[in-house]
């Protein structure tokens, strides 16, 4: 019973994520005054996985997770499943050196926070963006060879 329910949930989540990514891929967004116009995959990984505390422009970074799209985002960013990501952060609970991105429930809230914080970076479906933020990169387009301006 529980197994079946779990199966259905996973299946549903995957269907949802696939449809979102295909129809409306996730994009990295930042505050227009953050001093950055684009971002490569490495920088993105270093920021979201807690290695870099600051944006390449020197502003303290504030990474944001979009709760519903985390699965897709991390698969695309580091090719890891969510439990792996959770386990990663769990190991760092006591060291205090790094902390996971803030968990945000909706794309609107993400947009709101990014719009109001110069150091904030986040990700939202492409269709959800507006002109309060700048799109740094389409996640599908992120390559390792990309370099920050």
């Amino acid at each position, binding site marked *: 019973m529980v197994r079946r329910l779990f199966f259905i949930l996973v299946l549903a989540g995957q269907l949802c994520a696939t449809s979102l990514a295909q129809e409306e891929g996730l994009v990295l967004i930042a505050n227009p005054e953050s001093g950055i116009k684009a971002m490569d995959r490495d920088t993105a990984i270093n920021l979201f*996985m807690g290695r870099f505390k600051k944006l390449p422009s020197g502003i303290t970074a504030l990474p944001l997770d979009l709760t519903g799209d985390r699965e897709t985002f991390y698969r695309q960013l580091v090719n890891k499943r969510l439990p792996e990501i959770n386990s990663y952060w769990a190991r*760092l609970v006591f060291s205090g050196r790094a902390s996971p991105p803030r968990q945000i429930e909706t794309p609107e809230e993400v947009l709101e926070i990014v719009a109001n914080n110069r150091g904030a970076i986040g990700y939202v479906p492409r269709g959800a963006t507006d002109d309060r933020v700048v799109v740094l990169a389409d996640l599908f387009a992120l390559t390792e060879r990309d370099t920050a301006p």
Partner: protein
Amino acid sequence: MIIRLIKTRLAARSTAAILLLVAVLGMVFLALAMRLASVQETDRQYRQLEGLLDTVESTLQIACFLRDRELAGELVAGLMQNSTVAAVTITADDQVLSRAGESNRAAQSGDGQPEENRAELSRTIRSPFDETKIVGGIRLIPDRGVIRQEVMDSTYFVSVLLFVQMAIIGLGTAIIVVRLVTRPIARISRRLHRLKAETGEQLALPRGNEDDEIGQLVNDVNAMIDYLIQILGKERKLRLQREVEEKKFRTIFENAETAIFQVEENGRLTSFNPAFLRHFQVSEKDLHGKPQLTLYDLAGGQATLLREQVEACRRNRTNRELEFNVAEDPTRWLHLVLSYLDENLLQGVANDISERKLAEMDAERRATTDSLTGIGNRAGFDNRLARLVRQSQQRNRHFALMMMDLDFFKEVNDTYGHQAGDAVLVAVATTLRNAARKTDYVARLGGDEFVLLLDDVDSEEPATRLAEKLLEDIAQPIDIGNGVSASVGASIGIALSNREESVDDLISRADAAMYRSKQEGRNQFHTG
């Protein structure tokens, strides 16, 4: 003490030898085992450490990725818990995140061994999110001291086992050698020591050793005893036999009437029997008085003769036979035979032949003596003449022959009878003997015919002088008994020998000279 034991005890020696062998082999094996164990243990340790690194790798990746000193510190502390880890260093982007332990401990104990290149384990740490990105590294230095300790621990058991094995082998060898070899040998030795082999007593065979080498030894010893007893018996019999014979010979030697002696070249007597002393007239006193009795001393005047004979016998290696008289006593004669024994030793056998010799001499004297007058007869004259001729030829000496005929003897004989004639002949013979020298020979050849041989004269002068005296003496009246005297004379012919002349010619010359004296009126002499 132990060395003495090893020298005197077979069991100790065998045990020591086997123990030495086992110890040496054990040491070699132990060294090999330790070497092998060391290699294996090192391998094991490295595998273990690799495993350890595998275990913490994901956390390590995170720590390096985040340059998280806290997390790195925890990892280092965790790794250091392991006793084989001497030092750990975690770096991220050329910056040390955390470090613990003394890295030189490994170097110290490394001793420059071939494993030195394995002294540390190092890995590069890749980003947990991107396999291509190197975010740091870890260096882990193992504690070789611990590895060595582990090796010691693992070989300790082997060492103990080896020691126990040595002890058991040593003890076992000692017991086996003592039981199987030493004790039986000692038992046999003890018995052999007390054995009265000369009585033929045999060595008892130890039980259990009948068919092995010890049994063989005992059997051989017994066989040897048998053999020796046999030999001993034979020897004893032979010795007894020899003793009897020796006694027999000794008795013969001691009691023989024949003198038996051994004499050296220089005349020294090495052995002689009592008969020898008797025959050579040696008294006990003489024997003790002289430090060394020699044959030549005993021979006195005959020493030269004996010396010649001894030398000849020694040189020719042939028996020499001679007769000689002892101590210049004309009545004691010995017949002596000398036989060659060896280069320096002769054997002599001497018999008393005095009686035979005297009889012989008597017979000879009788044969050459005129029975009426006691002077030589024709045979004696012939002998002496032959000798003189021989001598004169050898030594270039001369002798004189004097022939004499009595004048008017026939008349005396016819007038007064044969007895008166005999008395005249005896008186003339006495006159001749008295007038002649001792060395001259006087004989009557028959009837009234006399002859004189004068030895060693080189002229006629001694002969003529003698002739003059004889003519004078013979001319004296001769008492023929019953107060009657008769007078005769003599006609004498003298001849001096010379070497070219034959005996017959000499006699003819003397005869002719005598005839001439008769012709010219008798009672005179002539030389021819």
